[in-house]
């Protein structure tokens, strides 16, 4: 018996995507799908292949192999029709600074083919959605970073896309603006928008997305719900140590301790560890650090989370 879900066309399906530059394969057999109304997060360190993957999804780059279907439409076969279904928020603030937000929106509205008689009303709606109704006639150059980011999102909503792709949408904004942007994104998902979200901020992905793909060195190394990814860790905990002294030597020593699967230097005085049975292993960890003449000034044991799963799967922190 077919259910309603069986009949739904996925918002996005990509399979076996490959992109090579010369001898270097920057995207290697990437595949995932996003159901209608689903929020999917794509996590990966810098250079993992996220932006190249997104460029192929939105039709900017031609894949060397594989396929992308947006709302059932093959991007390679009918890029124009597929692009109509996508709202793309690039990592850069892609707006003309000399023009007002309204003029920028009018420009993109016309590129998206919105009829002139509808466009003014639609511009007013998206400006209201991002909370900029009263600043729409100001030049973008005079906006704060957060306002520019919100306008960047407004452009992508203009033509009522079914799939919203956000590439690092909160880079460089203050915490207050970040909260406002995340609230808006959550609201869009609640209204049924399908979402592909990439970010350096794990907490953003944890908050907004129901399913996550982890991409590393051009390959999707894990794909599932947050619960599924964390479950892969088994009884692994994350331990954060703050040290006074040579952190590299301390990390080296900590890797020799039984039960430590990862030890990554995350700052000038901090080390992140993945350990089995974190709380019971603490005395051994402290003793190992003491052997290196470094002094522990802070300890935090964190229950398994997405950050720990990411570290486990990629061997690096997200901000590496």
């Amino acid at each position, binding site marked *: 018996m077919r259910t309603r879900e069986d009949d739904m066309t996925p918002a996005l399906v990509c399979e076996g995507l490959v992109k090579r530059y010369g001898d270097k394969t920057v995207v290697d057999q990437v595949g995932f799908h996003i159901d209608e109304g689903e929020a999917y997060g794509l996590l990966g360190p810098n250079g993992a292949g996220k*932006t190249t993957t997104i460029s192929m999804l939105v039709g900017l780059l031609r894949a060397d192999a594989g396929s992308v279907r947006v709302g059932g439409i093959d991007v390679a076969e009918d890029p124009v029709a597929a*692009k109509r279904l996508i709202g793309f928020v690039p990592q850069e603030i*892609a707006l003309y600074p*000399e023009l007002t937000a309204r003029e920028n929106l009018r420009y993109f509205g*016309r*590129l998206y083919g919105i009829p002139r008689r509808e466009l003014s009303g639609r511009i007013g709606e998206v400006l209201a959605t991002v909370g900029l109704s009263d600043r729409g006639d100001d030049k973008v150059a005079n906006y704060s970073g957060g306002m520019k980011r919100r306008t960047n999102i407004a452009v992508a909503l203009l033509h009522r896309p079914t799939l919203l792709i956000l590439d690092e949408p909160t880079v460089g904004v203050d915490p207050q603006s970040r909260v406002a942007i995340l609230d808006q994104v959550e609201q869009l998902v609640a209204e049924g928008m399908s979402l592909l979200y990439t970010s350096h901020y794990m907490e953003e992905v944890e908050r907004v997305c129901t399913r996550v793909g982890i991409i590393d060195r051009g390959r999707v190394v894990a794909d599932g719900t947050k619960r599924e990814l964390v479950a892969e860790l088994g009884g692994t905990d994350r331990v954060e140590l703050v040290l006074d002294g040579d952190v590299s030597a301390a990390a080296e020593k900590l890797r020799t301790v039984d039960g430590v699967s990862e030890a990554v230097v995350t700052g000038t005085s901090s080390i992140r560890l993945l350990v089995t049975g974190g709380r019971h292993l603490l005395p051994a960890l402290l003793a190992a650090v003491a052997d290196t003449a470094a002094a522990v000034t802070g300890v935090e044991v964190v229950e398994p989370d997405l950050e720990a799963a990411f570290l486990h799967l990629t061997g690096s922190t997200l901000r590496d």
Partner: protein
Amino acid sequence: MRPRPLTALVVANLRRQLRDRVGMFFMVVMPFVTIVFVGLALGGSSADAQLPVAVVADSSDPVAAAVLAELGSDQALVVQRAETEEEVREGVRQGTLAAGLVMHPGDYEFELVMSQTSGSGMAARSEIDVAVGKVAAVLEATRAAVTAGATPEQAAEYVRAAQRESAEVSVRSSGGEDDGAPTGFAYTAPANLLLFTFVNSMAVAAALVESRRIGMVRRSLATPVRHGQILLGEALSRFLVAAAQSLLIIFVSMFLFDVDWGDPVGVSVVVALFCLIATGAAMLVGALVNSPQQAPAIGPPVGIVLGMLGGCLWPREVAGEPLTTIGYLFPHSWAMDALLALARPGANLGAVLPEIAVLAGMAVVVLGIALTVFRRRALANV
């Protein structure tokens, strides 16, 4: 092809251009300042205007009277009498006179007062030389007739007869390079049209680099519009800016400086082709440089050098043969030749077909390369 995206892109780019106050100053004000100053240096007015010349002479002297009569009949000159040589020198120094002529009674060696660096002075000298030459010829003919045995009355009659016959003899222009070459504003207006259209096109390439750098081009390419339309819109925006600047210079120079550009069809074709080349050059600069600051740092100096080679800053004859030859590798020389040729009376499109063919070829090559490179670079950072 849907025209709406193309219009949207052009409107947005033109808005950006209009809001760039420094850019607008260089586009609107600067060309006219240059046309006026260089025009005054090269002749002071358009080619058809008369040159002011002062003469110090004693009217009772028959030779001086004859020279004065000849100068007075010259349509290219406005002759005024001066009392002293110093008065003439002061007028030439101040630029109120193109030249002056001092004729001392009984002395047939006249003194010409002019500035060697003034184009109008050169032009006035040539007119004065002709007038003095005519009088000298009459005197020489009269002397020869008297030497041959004629009475002074007979000699005068012979000379008058000879003058009547010589009036039927005229010299027709063979269309050589220097014949009737425009001076003054008639030269500086087309020269500055080419110079500033090209230089400003290169300068506005900064906006193109900015569009690429901030990801506007990339984001536009991600909309449901064919890539070719986005590229065409970017090129069309630059072409319209170049064309608008050209039209502004043409119309203002026509109405303010009385410049006659010649056959409108020919001028339109030449200017349109030159604007296409300038557009291609701007797209190329916009594609190749990495920051918006680099475009105005690189483009205008290149435009000025090409303008020098093409005769846009000074007449090419001043530059000499080697530089003139090198100049023909670039569009300015060809466009300058075409515009100067079209300004000659009776010239039309047919007179400049070789120049048009070369300019069209250059436009195809430069634009083709520019669009290919720009597309590649716009998509390079994805």
